[in-house]
């Protein structure tokens, strides 16, 4: 299996003018990118803004992406540079005396204050998290082990097959069935909750 084939197939489509393929890349990596940027800014809202800027920069630079490295590695570098620049420009801007930036707690507070603009969003995030966790707990052990090894440990199907002493095809099937079981419950939250959030937002 060629590494990064799925990302590369989406990237090639974007390079040929298919913007819809870029949506798939954003959906896949948005959480990872925000988490990455939060090493620099800590405030989730600001991290999202920086991640958005990084995605847009990546889109504009995609014609130069030749696939020499994995797409995420390339995106990762863009996000890091964007975050560093954002931190530098923020530090050069006039100091906001309303908030003491000297402690991590203040940064968290700043983030929570921005989040408080959308309380429904916070509730939904918690709801999504609890729904997924409950669905994972309800999974049969072989499905739960397969998806945890994949998502948490980052093992390949081949490595999971070796760990679980089963064929690669079985691993693929178990991970798919685990995702389907979780997704069935998650879809209800998204279809109900996100609709409400959008109405409020």
């Amino acid at each position, binding site marked *: *299996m060629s590494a990064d*084939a*799925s*990302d*590369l*197939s*989406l990237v*090639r*489509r*974007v390079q*040929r*003018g*298919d*913007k*819809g*393929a*870029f*949506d*798939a890349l*954003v*959906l*896949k*990596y*948005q*959480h*990872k990118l*925000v*988490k990455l940027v*939060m090493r620099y800014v800590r405030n*989730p809202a600001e991290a*999202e803004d920086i991640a*958005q800027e990084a*995605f*847009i920069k990546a*889109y*504009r630079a995609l*014609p*130069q992406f*030749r696939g020499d490295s994995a797409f995420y590695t390339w995106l990762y570098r863009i996000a890091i540079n964007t975050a560093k620049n954002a931190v530098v420009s923020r530090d050069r801007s006039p100091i906001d005396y309303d908030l003491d930036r000297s402690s991590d707690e203040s940064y968290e507070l700043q983030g929570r204050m921005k989040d408080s603009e959308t309380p429904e969003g*916070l509730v939904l*995030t918690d709801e*999504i*998290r609890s729904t*997924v*966790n409950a669905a994972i707990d309800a999974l049969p052990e072989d499905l739960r082990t397969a*998806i945890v090894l*994949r*998502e*948490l440990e980052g093992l390949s*199907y081949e490595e999971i097959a070796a760990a679980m002493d089963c064929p690669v095809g079985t691993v*693929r099937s178990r991970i*798919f069935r685990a*995702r*389907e079981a*979780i*997704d069935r419950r*998650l879809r209800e939250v*998204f279809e109900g909750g996100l609709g409400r*959030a959008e109405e409020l*937002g």
Partner: protein
Amino acid sequence: MNEELDSQLSAMFDDELPPAECELLARRLSRDEALKARWGRYAVIGAVLRAERGVRLNAALAGRVNVAISAEPALGATAVPARASAPRVRWWQPLAGGALAASVAAGAILFMRAQAPSAGAPLAAQSLPSAVVTPVVNVTSGPLRNTSYVTPPLPAARPMLVPSTQLANYVVAHSMVSSPVARHNLLSAFITSEPAAEAGQAADHVARAAP
């Protein structure tokens, strides 16, 4: 929703789908909103499992990026000039290389032909052995008697070429018996003639003149 399709989507999300299937599914994924939403939820499941604290799982980030990208020009039009500046082999370079090689080869062939004697002669000469024994049947005498004469052997490397000094000597000697005008014409023709033609004709002449 097709279960096989969803299974492929899950494998593609994990980068475990063969590239050919990825190509097909990527096309569908970019157009099918339901499939895209499922793909997005797979990402949410991963984020929860990795306990990515602080990350808002319902964030409208993807939607905001989508809106921003909608205002951007499609990359198909801008990709070409950007690639043109990239230091890599362009599509026409292998063709140009082939054409250059063909030109060099054609030049070499023309040069060789210019250096070689006339078209038919070299082949005939090369097919000849170094000394040809031609049987001659004398029909006038009583009993049949094989006689033969020997054609002088030809040089192996350039079989039809006679050294120019020998050839010049021969021509001069031959012209001694001809008229002065004819002699002059013959010498002039010899000097100004094409080297290849000169060699071929002279060699033929030598062969015919040999006793």
